[in-house]
């Protein structure tokens, strides 16, 4: 691959009650649970989107990261061909465990469609697509650990084959209150060259 160089336009990390955008802390709270942290972050950025509160934690995490990188990127007057390539380690296991609990006790059997629908990791891509009206390529992958080589290659394939103009890449891991989101926007123009070593370094920060 690599016929044409690609570039990282912006990047965002969410972990340990802190949100870092392009290397700068833009939001931080005292140690708290994710539901509280995510609600505070949502209010802090004055996002007007009530559907947020119905999402599971994985979708909330992915949504917040995408919001920060896409809000100045989307032009509502035209089509925005920004692909979504996301991955994580634990799939939707956090809500899988919760859903399983709702059916395990036959005395207290209460399977809910509103919970069941989130037992697929790609639902967060649907949430982001709806929010930003992205009718674009999207795929969700699972790896044991963050896989920068795969992400770089796959994003470049989409841009070089013109399946997408830009690609929002995301590592969005959530299980049992342990979370980390690392999202970045890849384009065919820019200053910061999109390559594995750089992605790896920024991810580890």
């Amino acid at each position, binding site marked *: 691959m690599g016929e044409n160089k690609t570039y990282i336009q912006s990047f965002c990390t969410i972990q340990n009650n802190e949100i870092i955008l392009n290397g700068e802390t833009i939001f931080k709270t005292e140690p708290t649970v994710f539901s509280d942290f995510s609600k505070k972050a949502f209010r802090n950025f004055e996002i007007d989107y009530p559907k947020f509160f119905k999402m599971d934690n994985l979708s909330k995490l992915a949504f917040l990261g995408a919001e920060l990188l896409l809000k100045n990127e989307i032009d509502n007057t035209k089509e925005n061909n920004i692909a979504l390539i996301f991955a994580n380690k634990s799939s939707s296991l956090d809500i899988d465990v919760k859903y*399983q609990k709702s059916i395990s006790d036959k005395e207290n059997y209460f399977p809910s469609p509103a919970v069941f*629908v989130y*037992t*697929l990791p790609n639902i967060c*891509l649907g949430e982001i697509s709806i929010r930003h009206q992205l009718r674009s390529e*999207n*795929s*969700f992958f*699972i790896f044991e650990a963050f896989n920068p080589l795969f992400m770089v290659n796959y994003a470049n394939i989409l841009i070089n084959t013109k399946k997408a103009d830009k690609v929002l890449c995301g590592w969005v891991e959530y299980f049992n209150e342990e979370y980390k989101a690392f999202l970045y926007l890849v384009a065919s123009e820019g200053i910061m060259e999109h390559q594995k070593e750089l992605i790896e370094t920024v991810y580890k920060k």
Partner: protein
Amino acid sequence: MTKEVFITETNCITPIGFDVAANVKNIVNGVSGIQLHQNQSLMKAPFYASIVDSAQLNKAFAKVAPAENYTKLEKMMILALQPIVENSKLDLDGKTGFILSTTKGNITALENPSEENIQKAQLHQLAKTIADFFGFKTEPIVVSNACVSGILAVSVAKRLVQSRMYDNIFVVAGDVISEFVLSGFNSFQAMSDLPCKPYSKNRNGVTLGEASAAVLVTSNKEHAKIKIIGDGSINDANHISGPSRTGEGLFRSIESALAEAKINPNQIDYISAHGTGTTFNDEMEAIAFNRLGLENIPVNSLKGFYGHTLGASGLLETVIGIQSVLESKLFVSLGFDELGVSQPINIIEKSEDKTINYFLKTASGFGGCNTAVLFEKVK
């Protein structure tokens, strides 16, 4: 020049056969895997489903591996891949990739949620188990994208081979029936009370099924069964648990595949569609196909034979579709009686002979996802 990509090996493990030939024989004879089951540990009331017989599976597995502690899904996946890995005679080196497609993997492990079992339910752990069995050297790539996973895995493999990241990729897809999935579809009131009837007037939902399927995707044309010529996976951006009323994402996914393949819609000879048997899905597909002028192309859903096998379905239906192309045969869309979608589509009502040069596979799923892949007969 863009690299050409082919499928050279196929296999599947389903309730109607443990290889492709047995499956095709049953399809030709109209034999479905769907049966009425009474199993209170899965569901309180009797339910229709297409379930792999465990005793037969264990018997077949014993010929391949000593009876180690593998789950039903792992056995099905290993059995699907084993002859392909063996026939390929490939060095399992750094240029040989491995993609695993599933929606829920070993989800039944959560029924007893110990630390160890939670680990077992991790999809990357399932992929590692399968990879270790065969000795794949590269890191497994798990595709988990709801009901398009199986066909998306073919698209991903094609793109990675085209980009020269790998020369060959083994792809396996599988899902099993569980209380988890049955109760979930039931909570959506999406389950059919009879074997599913895709595109029919009296359809009333999904019948679930279990299966595994496997293929080898490669840049090597030798022994090619089919060529992969275009693909697209575009989101509806409309609703997380229902398809777009206009079929927007599916429409665009097929458009994207056609543009890449540089063929016109009317050149397609056969569509293997998703056809789950729900009111909204089947209607949405009919609308998308009409928007593209595909209403006269023969189309079937194989769900009447297999039920909805979730993460396996797209790959399983591709494997059978490839057989349609190789044998020049259109297979009946089992369960269909009277057209029950608002736009005309050309459902295959009985199996018949037809030369197929271009074959389209589509799927759609929760999260608003859609995938379309175009295949061309190898001359």
